[in-house]
C-alpha cells in the first residue's frame, strides 16, 4: 500500500491536541514513536482468525517488521489484545479479566466478523457475544472472515497511527479519541 493511500483518512491526525510546550511535544513524539514501534500483542485467539494472526506473525508476513513484535503469554506484559475469533458468553468474563490485567496504556483490536458483530453467529444463536465491544473498548476493527494477514498488518498500522497521537500529559486514550 502506498503511503498516500494509507494516509487517505486524515481525521485520525486531526484529533491530536496541540500542546504549546515545545519540550513536551517533542518528548511526546519521541516516546510515542518508541511505543508505537514496540507493540506487544497478547497470545489470545479463539478460532480461525487466530490462524491468520499466526500467519501474520510467521515468516511470510512477519509483522515484527512493523514493530508489533513478540507475542506475550501474560497479559501483564502485553500492550495490545487482538481479539481473534468468536467470543461466547462463557468466554466473555475471561476476556474482560485478561483486559483488566493488562497494564495501561492498553489497546484492543477486534479482528474478524465475529469479534466485530458476532458475524455468522449473529442470528439464531443463544451463546455468542454480538461484538466484543459489548465487553471491552475497541480501538481498531478489522473486517473479514477471517481477514487476510495483510488486513491485520493494515489494522496494526492504523493502531500505530493512533498511538502516535497520544500525549503523556493525557494518557487516557478514551478521552482523547
Amino acid at each position, binding site marked *: 500500500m502506498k503511503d498516500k493511500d494509507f494516509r487517505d483518512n486524515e481525521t485520525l491526525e486531526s484529533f491530536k491536541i496541540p500542546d504549546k510546550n515545545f519540550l513536551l511535544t517533542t518528548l511526546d513524539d519521541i516516546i510515542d514513536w518508541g511505543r508505537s514501534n514496540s507493540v506487544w500483542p497478547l497470545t489470545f485467539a479463539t478460532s480461525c482468525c487466530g490462524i491468520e494472526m499466526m500467519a501474520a506473525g510467521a515468516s511470510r508476513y512477519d509483522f515484527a517488521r512493523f514493530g508489533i513484535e513478540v507475542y506475550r503469554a501474560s497479559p501483564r506484559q502485553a500492550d495490545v489484545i487482538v481479539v481473534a475469533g468468536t467470543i461466547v458468553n*462463557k468466554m466473555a468474563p475471561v476476556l474482560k479479566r485478561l483486559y483488566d490485567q493488562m497494564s495501561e496504556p492498553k489497546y484492543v483490536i477486534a479482528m474478524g466478523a465475529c469479534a466485530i458483530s458476532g458475524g455468522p453467529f*449473529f*442470528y*439464531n*444463536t*443463544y*451463546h455468542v457475544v*454480538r461484538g466484543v465491544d459489548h465487553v471491552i473498548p475497541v480501538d481498531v476493527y478489522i473486517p473479514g472472515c477471517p481477514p487476510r494477514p495483510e488486513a491485520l498488518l493494515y489494522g496494526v498500522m492504523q493502531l500505530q497511527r493512533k498511538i502516535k497521537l497520544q500525549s503523556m500529559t493525557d494518557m487516557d486514550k478514551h478521552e482523547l479519541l
Partner: protein
Amino acid sequence: MDNERLTEWIRTLVPEAQLEENKQFLTLVIPADKFHDLAVNLKESEDTLMDYLFCLSGVDMIKHLMVVYHLNSTRYGHSIELKVKTEDRENPAFDTVSDIWQAANFYEREIFDLFGIRFNNHPDLRRIFLDESWKGYPFRKDYVDEVNIVDL
C-alpha cells in the same frame, strides 16, 4: 465382517432392527428397550468386537428425538451406525452406554445438556457446557429465548 453379515448378526439378537439408507455406514434403527443388551453383545462378542464408540450425537427431528451411536471395531475395522428414537419430548430417556464405553460418559452429558435427553444409570448426569442455572435445552428445535436469540 461385511455389512450383510453384520445385519444378519444383529437381526438374530434384535429381529425388529430396521435398515436405513445411508451411503457411508450400515445404519440400523434399534428399539430403545433392547439397545443396551445389543450394545453389550456388540462390544463383548468375538465376532464383532465393537470396542470403539467414535461418535455419539443427539438429533431433534421434531417428530421424534434420536440418539445416534457410531461404533467401530479396531481389530476388524468394520463400523456401524445405530439409532434409537423416542417420541416423548417431555421426559425422553434412554439407557446409558457409559458402562460399556467410557467415552460415552461425556457425550451423554453433552446430549443431556443440549437436548434434554436423560440417560438411565448414568454415573454423573449433569450439564457440561452450560451452567446449572440454565433453563431449557438450546439444541431443541422448539427452544425459544426472546432475550438472547435474534431470529432471522
